[in-house]
């Protein structure tokens, strides 16, 4: 197969299979959806990548929700309350 070399810019580089597998393996162990599976079960690279995307989206949603929640919580904190003391202690 001839590569269109002229089209290969810095953003379109080649990557070896071994390197790809190493990198994807590192992602695999981070994913709750696949992590539990037995080591002997091989997972396809595209499955790992799909799960990686899903997982990042899930984490983003969680951070969004938590941001909303914290914004509400901080607003409800009374300056003299126990929670305010908690905050001050964390800031030290």
């Amino acid at each position, binding site marked *: *197969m001839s590569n269109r070399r002229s089209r290969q810019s*810095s*953003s*379109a*580089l*080649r*990557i*070896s*299979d*071994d*390197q*790809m*597998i*190493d*990198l*994807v*393996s*590192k*992602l*695999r*162990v*981070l994913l709750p959806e696949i992590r539990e599976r037995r*080591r002997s*079960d*091989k*997972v*396809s*690279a*595209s499955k*790992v*990548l*799909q799960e*990686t*995307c899903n*997982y*990042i*989206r899930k*984490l*983003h*949603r969680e*951070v*969004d*929700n*938590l*941001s*909303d*929640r*914290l*914004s509400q*919580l*901080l*607003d*409800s*904190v009374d300056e003299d*309350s126990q*929670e305010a003391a*908690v*905050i001050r202690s*964390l*800031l030290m």
Partner: protein
Amino acid sequence: MASLVSDTEPPTYLNSTPTDLVRRKKRQSASSAAASSRRNNAASATAGDGDSHAPWRSEKQQRSYSANLIQALQQVRLSSPAAETPYPTAQKRGKAFREAADRALAVSARGRTLWSRAILFNRFKLKFRKQKRPRPAAIPAVITRGSSSSSSGRGTKKRRVTVVKLNKKSIPTVNRKVRVLGRLVPGCKKESVPVILEEATDYIQALEMQVRAMKSLAELLSGSGSGSAPPPI
């Protein structure tokens, strides 16, 4: 994750990071055992999963992030007091909190990674992610199979411990998914495949820590009954 790294001789790496490439060149003359161990070090250093590089799972890191986070959130609060904020901008406020939380995370990463630098220099356009939808897009293929490794990549070599398989047929799919992933990791939209994968590995761990820290902070703040907010997720 060193166990996942094969100890077979590496094929030519055409798109390693510059330092990696230099090391790799030097390494070719070294004995294979030493080369292999150094490669493992280099791999974990660039991928950010090494404990020494980004200890996202450590207590200390989470504590320091929590402190950064509270400080950042307090600043947002002071600059836009809720009492004066009309309802429609409540979402805007949530977004400001969100941005503050991300900046604090990037600060904790100390700018060692692309994604954290992208956040710090505001190159990552934050949409409020709840509304964000993945778009299908035409993506140029990036991986071409190395001519030297047509059989070694399947994990069929003995002594090779892999948990991932890569089929020839699935390579366009893989490339497409890496591109999607590149849009999810700050600053990685236009990066190469290995860079995206390495950054994603670090970014996920950072996000996990962020979620843990924010959750425990929310629990602390709602702990003694004053919080009328609904339980988390």
